[in-house]
């Protein structure tokens, strides 16, 4: 309930959209294993470079459709994915390239999907918004705002029905908390005691509509109160804060068999999608974003703490760049799906009289 909801570092947001993280309550770099920190740094940097390369490929028309990037959400993603076990399930919205990579899909598989190639993780059928991999248990990438919530709730129902010990994580954006599916899903998850953590990536806007102009209760983690779902807020630009909050809630979901709501506060560093110049943003906002770039900040913190040496930094940057280049090359050189496969995925169980007409064909083939 709202009154029991604990506010982790991140705190409330001022109307200008600035936010300060109360470092005193946050976990410290000093108390972490250097290797762990470097691993986080590497994974955050991979997402950053991957998305930059994606933007480039999009402007070069190697990628089509809509293309939403995770720039500015790297710490959130790595923190969340660190909290999940391999057996845990993940459902996300369409802004999921980074999640796909961080959950364990190869950069090649994700980039090839963006290029629409048959080597893509969804065989080129899904594209940017629809990454899916049964193996790593990322059960989609969904483009309909809120569409993933009932599905994720159902996945948690299946886990509970079977008495399994997996947890489902359901990611969504701030604007998504205003749609009916949010209400119906949280109510059902709480009513049926399902092991699921709903994560709201509060990046301060929908497309251009701010949280304050879309949500009558802008402190989104408090919205769990209408379902007796405990809500927590964390600083989404602090990988350690996100990791700890997410680990706490996923493990409680697992042991208590209850749903939880986690809100992470971050900032979208570019437009809503690659084509959006984000003219509606003020200079101050853009400046605030730059000066709080989660990757740059973590990098300098690690350097200051002596964890990230010049050599280590160079090694990591080179290997990340190499991985991204390799992914792009792989995608570029992968085959396009063959038109003969057009009717391969309409039904899982073959059925009589299924239509396999091409646009110019008559209804009755000669």
């Amino acid at each position: 309930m709202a009154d029991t909801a604990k506010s982790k570092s991140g705190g409330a947001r001022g109307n200008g959209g600035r936010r300060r993280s109360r470092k005193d309550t946050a976990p410290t770099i000093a108390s972490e294993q250097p290797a762990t920190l470097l691993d986080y740094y590497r994974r955050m940097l991979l997402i950053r470079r991957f998305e930059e390369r994606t933007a480039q490929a999009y402007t070069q028309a190697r990628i089509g459709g809509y293309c939403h990037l995770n720039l500015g959400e790297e710490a959130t993603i790595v923190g969340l994915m660190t909290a999940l076990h391999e057996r845990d399930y993940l459902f996300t919205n369409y802004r999921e390239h980074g999640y796909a990579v961080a959950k364990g899909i190869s950069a090649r598989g994700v980039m090839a999907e963006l290029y629409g190639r048959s080597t893509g993780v969804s065989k080129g059928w899904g594209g940017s918004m629809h990454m899916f991999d049964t193996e790593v248990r990322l059960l989609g990438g969904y483009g309909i705002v809120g569409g993933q919530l009932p599905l994720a709730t159902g996945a948690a129902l299946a886990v509970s029905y079977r008495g399994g010990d997996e947890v489902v994580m359901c990611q969504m954006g701030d604007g998504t908390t205003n749609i009916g599916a949010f209400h119906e899903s949280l109510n059902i998850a709480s009513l049926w005691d399902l092991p699921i953590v709903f994560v709201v990536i509060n990046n301060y806007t929908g497309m251009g509509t701010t949280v304050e102009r879309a949500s009558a209760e802008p402190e989104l983690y408090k919205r769990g109160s209408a379902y007796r779902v405990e809500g927590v807020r964390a600083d989404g630009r602090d990988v350690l804060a996100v990791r700890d909050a997410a680990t706490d809630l996923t493990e409680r979901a697992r042991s208590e068999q209850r749903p939880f709501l986690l809100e992470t506060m971050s900032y979208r560093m570019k437009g809503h999608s690659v084509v959006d110049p984000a003219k509606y943003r003020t200079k101050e906002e853009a400046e605030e974003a730059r000066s709080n770039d989660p990757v740059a900040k973590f990098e300098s913190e690690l350097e200051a703490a002596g964890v990230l040496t010049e050599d280590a930094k160079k090694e990591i940057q080179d290997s990340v760049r190499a991985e991204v280049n390799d992914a792009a090359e792989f995608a570029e050189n992968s085959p396009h799906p063959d038109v003969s496969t057009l009717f391969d995925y309409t039904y899982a169980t073959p059925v009589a009289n299924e239509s396999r007409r091409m646009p110019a064909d008559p209804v009755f083939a000669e």
Partner: protein
Amino acid sequence: MSVITYRQALRDTLRAEMHRDENVFAMGEEIGVFEGSYKITEGLLKEFGERRVRDTPIAEEGFVGAAIGASMLGLRPVVEVMTINFSLLALDQIVNHAAKIYGMFGGQNSVPMVIRTPGGGGQQLGATHSQNIELYYSFVPGLKVIAPSTPADAAAMLRAAIRDNDPVLLLENLGLYNSKGEVPDDDDSVAEIGRAAVTREGNDITIIGYSRMAMIASQVAENLADEGINAEVIDLRSLRPLDRETIVESVSKTGSAVVAEDDWLTYGIGAEIAATIQEGAFDWLDAPVRRVAMAEVPLPYAKPLETAALPSAESLTTAVHETLRAVGRRVG
């Protein structure tokens, strides 16, 4: 063989499938404690308990979507949507998710779920509770839509739907629940989705219907026989996929056809049937395909208005007579 109602056939089959497969479970509004708005699930909560017979909150989008998600992990939910009118609230989950998940992700994950829901007017339920909108599902690739008109088909088709790995919408009808028919005892036969049935053979004209109108079509055909008119009757049974061959084959023999549908005429299910016939049996068609359907209005509550707006044995008979006249045959 025993003679049971359409309702009983559905209940017996659901019950048997739940015994057969632990992954099969039922969910929907008021199906447990209340035992179902139309009592299809009567007794199931007592027998299987709350884990497998779940009363849901009033949240069509939420619980239909949850069923889809549960099926993605291999469960086989059988969801009851109280009437097809309320399914509009879950349409995004059904059309944009259940129907898309298998294809959109390159065939990695199937969605083995069933949605049971009744359509049907004639109960004076008014404009929002009397619609026949199976079209909304029949139009969508990725979904399978079946519409049994007899207790035997209700059983064999529900069995097929539950064992199928794709999302299947099974259309029921308020006007059929109490209808009776022979059903084989402890049967395990599975109907083939995508096949229509010639339920009566004849050479004079083809009458095509589905769900409640397939039943009406058979009755009309019997009466026409007394006039010496030998009508062939086709029960579509499957709206998606649509069995065009069976339709065209029949009309190529009879030379004329009338479609009987419970929905609105313009853009209704019958439009595709007529379009199919004119394309597939063009050279054998002796008269235009006529359609008997609901008047295109928000269905009024008042009985005389409702009755006038709905298709019936009388209106179907009239259309058959006029069609036969058009082919130059002398009729009553």
